[in-house]
């Protein structure tokens, strides 16, 4: 079985600092692979290299067996790599519905048309409405993103990523800044999405990680120090060492 996403020997240096130090990991079909690590471990640097916003100094990124190390961000997205942003990054002046519509249109293509009417592209809006149906955002469809709450923006991030029907989904701290109830709701949603879409979940919230992950990698100072099932990671002495002072979090 080929990995949906494979990262092999990735290295990225900033001056004297090695932010990503020979990192290798895979996301297998049906898997929710969680990546955890203390602040400054290099999680964001790693995510940015997988997405294509940052070029690695060495190593390779493969998507379903295909080398995408040199591909641009839009090329990777077109090949099936989806992502959500830690700090929500949306089209702030457009409505919730339009944000999803833009994602659907991007997948359908034919967006280099100067003489069509976007508002009249029935297939785009039918799919956008179908994605919204039954979600907490459905009654908020006509609201401009700027006026959404933080929790709603986080939900929209996920919906927009799903609108592209990704083969694998990179989630950059989807729980960041959510309240307890919102977090529980997000965990439920991710569990549901995870049944069909494999994920690499970068997350601080340990409850979420242990509720969702099928496998966990621990990143410390740019290096993976442990990899295994959630239970194995929970009891790994090296991981406990790295999280010293945050032991209750892991308990």
């Amino acid at each position, binding site marked *: 079985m080929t990995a949906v996403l494979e990262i092999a020997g990735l290295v990225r240096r900033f001056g004297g600092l090695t932010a990503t130090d020979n990192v290798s990991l895979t996301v297998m079909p049906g898997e929710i692979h969680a990546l955890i690590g203390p602040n400054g471990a290099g999680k964001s640097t790693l995510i940015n290299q997988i997405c294509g916003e940052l070029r690695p100094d060495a190593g390779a990124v493969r998507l379903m067996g295909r080398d995408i190390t040199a591909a641009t*961000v839009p090329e990777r997205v077109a090949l099936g790599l989806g992502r959500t942003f830690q700090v929500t990054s*949306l*089209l702030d*002046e457009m409505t919730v519905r339009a944000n999803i519509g*833009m*994602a659907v249109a991007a997948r359908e293509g034919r967006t280099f048309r100067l003489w069509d*009417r*976007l*508002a009249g592209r029935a297939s785009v809006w039918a799919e956008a409405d179908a994605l919204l149906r039954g979600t907490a955002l459905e009654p908020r469809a006509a609201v401009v993103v700027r006026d959404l709450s933080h929790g709603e923006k986080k939900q929209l991030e996920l919906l927009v990523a799903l609108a592209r029907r990704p083969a694998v989904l990179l989630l950059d701290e989807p729980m960041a800044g959510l309240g307890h109830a919102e977090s529980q709701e997000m965990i439920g949603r991710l569990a549901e999405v995870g049944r069909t879409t494999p994920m690499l979940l970068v997350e601080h919230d340990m409850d979420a990680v242990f509720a969702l992950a099928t496998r966990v990698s621990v990143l410390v100072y740019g290096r993976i120090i442990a990899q295994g099932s959630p239970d194995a990671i929970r009891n790994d002495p090296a991981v406990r060492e790295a999280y010293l002072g945050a032991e209750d979090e892991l308990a």
Partner: protein
Amino acid sequence: MRAVILILAAAALLALPFAAQAAGQPALITLATRIAVYAIAAASLNFILGYGGMVSFGHAAFFGLGAYTVGVMFHHAGAGPMFGLIPGTTHLLVTIPLALAVSGLAAAAIGALSLRTGGVQFIMITLAFAQMLFFLFVSLTTYGGEDGLIIRRPNEFLGLNLRDRVTMYYVALGFAAAFFLILWRIVHSSFGAVIQGIRQNERRMAALGYAPYRYKLAAFVLSGMGCGLAGALMANVLRFTSPDLMHWTKSGELIVMVILGGLGSFFGPVFGAAAFLILETYLAGWSEHWPLALGAILLVIVLFTRGGVAGLIARIGGALQR
């Protein structure tokens, strides 16, 4: 409601020459013609500046190239073919497409290079390219150098006499109407939505799978062509073209019109061009230090009306409906 306003506006614009003559103010007709032409240029700039978020400080280059296309073709119609090859012409139906092609090609070259940068660098590079063209035309003595080219006869167009100011007004108005119709379609197309998305969040658009560069370049070229059209019309209105049309201050004037009218508002540039040219005309008749007064007025508008003249009108309209 919207349709009623549009019909009333169209009727007013069509009746304007008669009203101006009845009021004994024929100079108003030429002023209105210049407003129509500058509205095209300002709306072209607004398409990339207001909708696309690209601050071009060199759009006078395309305006000037459009004007020079008409001027140079007129020159060669009298003085023999350009390089002994390209014959001159005095037909508007030839000079307009030619002006669109020339300004479009120039915009493709300038855009391809400058769009690799962003922010302040983009502003400076577009400015630099425009100034290069300005100095090029200053040095071209064949075409009058810094004195410019006098176009003794305006272009021929469907047997109309473009020297007649009322006829020229209607021709300019017709071109402006067609231009705004096309612009409306583009703004509301899939392409137009992508351009607006890129302004709002380029990183997000890339993450959706849009490659921003080619969309931005296409928008830049379209915008340059719009300015080229305006320049070609302006050469016929003034029957004159000079490097001043591509000086950086002209690029600045276009930006002022866009901001004055309302950044990213569809009809804003019309109001902006009108406000700018009316103020210029009347303030200049009042004092030679008119830019000082214009600056003060601009400052007030930028500081106190969000969305320029168009924003002001929308808010008055909203208050009336309540």
